[in-house]
């Protein structure tokens, strides 16, 4: 039997992310710490000041400039990381598309927080859901340990796929909550991420290239199609890198989805991020009572793992989908809409109920989770869904 000595640290999600960044030792980190404040940047700048990393830290004047610096630096062939949340991510919006379209690997940590107005600093997914079609890979983590490991893997994923990648965690719930994080040795991290081998660099004087030219109707369409090819390719790279990571470090971090007691389940709840923790507890309670219920945690939202969902959910009778963001489409949250689309080709589709919860940091309690299960059991019994979406935990 292999003996692995494991080092466990008590870290918040922010600290875990900053710790991973320290061990990755990126070439350039550009970040704006506010809108709302991301502690990751503060912790990381201390590493810079103490000489623990030899990263070029660029403390910019806005998130728009943060991501613009990342674009310039990544085009120069360097390894790049940044961190943001909420309004800051919204301010980056324009350049997110440019980073992805120029096929520039950049790894960004996001503490998921609500968008204004009203101004709020607490958790929901409206920020990253707003950038879901920007061409970035999006990985939503459940806890601090998963953030740490996913972030290290994300560097390799982004640089192999030549795509930027967001690694997200729930604001406050995970960013500020302290948990056990099993960390690797610095050398192990360095060995895993290796060196970046850029395809092109704007610093290559001998082979000058033009990056970001005007591109009209005669080529733009083909470039978008080839960008999609890159994303399709990422669908192979993500599980390959995560598998390699898990094998190498004896871990079990999920790549696209995590299944929790879904074997023979007639009711399955699809959820993302930290809410999965509460829902796993409810699944245990219900399983005790003999209910065939399970949880499928969706970790990667972009690219969307529709093939996996279609396969895993094809025999489920009732599906509950948890959405921590609104679309204002009047047909529910973003996750439910995508899950519905993924299951559409099935001949026999499960009954599906969307739940909107936790906007602006409203706590998602065990009682709320039990209410979700009660509604799903009722749907199973009555064999019909009567509401397009249900707001859970809202004051009437």
């Amino acid at each position, binding site marked *: 039997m292999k003996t692995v000595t494991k080092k466990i640290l008590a870290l918040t999600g922010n600290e875990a992310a900053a710790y991973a960044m320290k061990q990755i030792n990126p070439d350039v980190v550009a970040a704006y710490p506010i809108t709302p404040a991301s502690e990751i940047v503060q912790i990381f700048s201390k590493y810079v000041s103490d000489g623990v990393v030899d990263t070029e830290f660029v403390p910019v004047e806005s998130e728009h400039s943060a991501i613009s610096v990342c674009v310039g630096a990544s085009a120069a062939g360097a390894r790049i990381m940044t961190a943001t949340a909420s309004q800051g991510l919204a301010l980056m919006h324009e350049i997110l598309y440019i980073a992805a379209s120029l096929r520039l690997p950049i790894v960004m940590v996001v503490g998921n927080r609500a968008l204004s107005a009203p101004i709020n600093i607490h958790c929901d997914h409206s920020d990253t859901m707003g950038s879901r079609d920007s061409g970035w890979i999006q990985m939503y983590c459940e806890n601090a340990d998963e953030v740490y490991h996913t972030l290290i893997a994300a560097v390799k994923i982004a640089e192999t796929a030549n795509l930027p990648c967001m690694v997200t965690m729930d604001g406050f719930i995970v960013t500020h909550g302290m948990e056990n994080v099993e960390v690797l040795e610095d050398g192990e991290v360095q060995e895993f991420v290796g060196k970046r081998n850029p395809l092109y660099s704007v*610093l290559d004087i001998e082979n*000058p290239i033009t990056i970001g030219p005007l591109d009209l109707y005669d080529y733009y369409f083909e470039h978008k199609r080839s960008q999609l090819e890159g994303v399709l390719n990422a669908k192979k790279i993500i599980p390959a890198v995560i598998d390699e990571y898990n094998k190498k470090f004896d871990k079990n971090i999920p790549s696209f989805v995590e299944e929790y007691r879904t074997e023979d389940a007639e009711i399955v709840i699809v959820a993302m991020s930290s809410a999965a923790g509460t829902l796993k507890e409810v699944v245990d309670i219900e399983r005790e009572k003999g209910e065939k219920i399970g949880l499928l945690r969706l970790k990667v939202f972009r690219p969307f793992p529709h093939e996996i969902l279609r396969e895993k959910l094809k025999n489920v009778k009732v599906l509950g989908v948890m959405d921590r963001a609104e679309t204002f489409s009047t047909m529910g949250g973003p996750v439910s809409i995508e899950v519905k689309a993924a299951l559409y080709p099935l001949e026999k589709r499960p009954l599906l109920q969307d739940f909107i919860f936790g906007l602006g940091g409203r706590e998602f309690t065990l009682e709320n989770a039990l209410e979700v299960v009660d509604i799903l059991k009722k749907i199973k019994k009555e064999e019909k869904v009567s509401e397009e979406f249900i707001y859970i935990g809202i004051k009437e």
Partner: protein
Amino acid sequence: MKRVLSLKELSERTNGLAPGHRACAGCPFPSIVRMVLGSSDYPVVVANATGCMEVVTTIFPYTAWSVPWIHSAFENAGATVSGVESAFKALKRKGVIPEDKKINFIAFGGDGGTYDIGFQSLSGAIERGHNFLYVLYDNQAYMNTGVQRSSATPYGAHTTTSPAGKRIPGKMQHRKDITEIVAAHGIPYVAQASPSHWADLVKKVRRALEIEGPKFIAVISPCVPGWGYDESESIELTRLAVETCFWPLYEVDHGVYKVNYRPREKLPVKVWLEKQARFKHLLDKPELIDEIQKKVDEKWERLLRLDGQKIF
């Protein structure tokens, strides 16, 4: 390093931007770009804001740039060049790039991408002290998109969003003084130049490139369709802008002001205005021309005082 280049020397160093770009006939900025790139003794990497220059020098699969070039968006040339320069520093520190490798980083932006939408990005980049030269080519409106007013548009000028109408005679605000605003950041080198005075322009670029840290040079760049004049007169218009002191040639080198050219006889600004269709509605409104002249005089006298020169 000698700061002055002969015309012959300069003519042998202008291959950074190839012919075959699609700038309008008479547009002076290709010449400005060639002079700027030709002034560098080391390899150059260019970052470009969205605008005329980006549009006419590239269209996939073609490019007029024979130096590495990056364009990201309209308002972020300052941040983009910061990123490239930071990566260069980091990769040197980590031994990926040899320690003695020299590259000059140059950002080009028009007035929209500099005075207006790109102002914050530029201000942040120079405050952080990145080692780069920012060259503004100032054609005084959003020319690429159809001559909309910018904060660089002069008082009284007709643009498509400050049209000279029955009630309002063009733009009713004076232009922002970007050179002074950049100088107020306290960066090592700030200058104003004109393609009419090419030797001065080249000297300024070469002086700027000697200095470690952020540098800024504003270059006047007339726009044939936007200003409304004969395409053969671009350089003449920049000369008149200098001779009327509408566009003084000066520099602020480590905080020290120097007026580089003092016209023997300062021409009235009307001489410059009346050559351009964008001001033609002002010609029968002497009070508006007086207002422009007043502002030109104020600024010119202030500059002379800063340089310690006698005003009269």
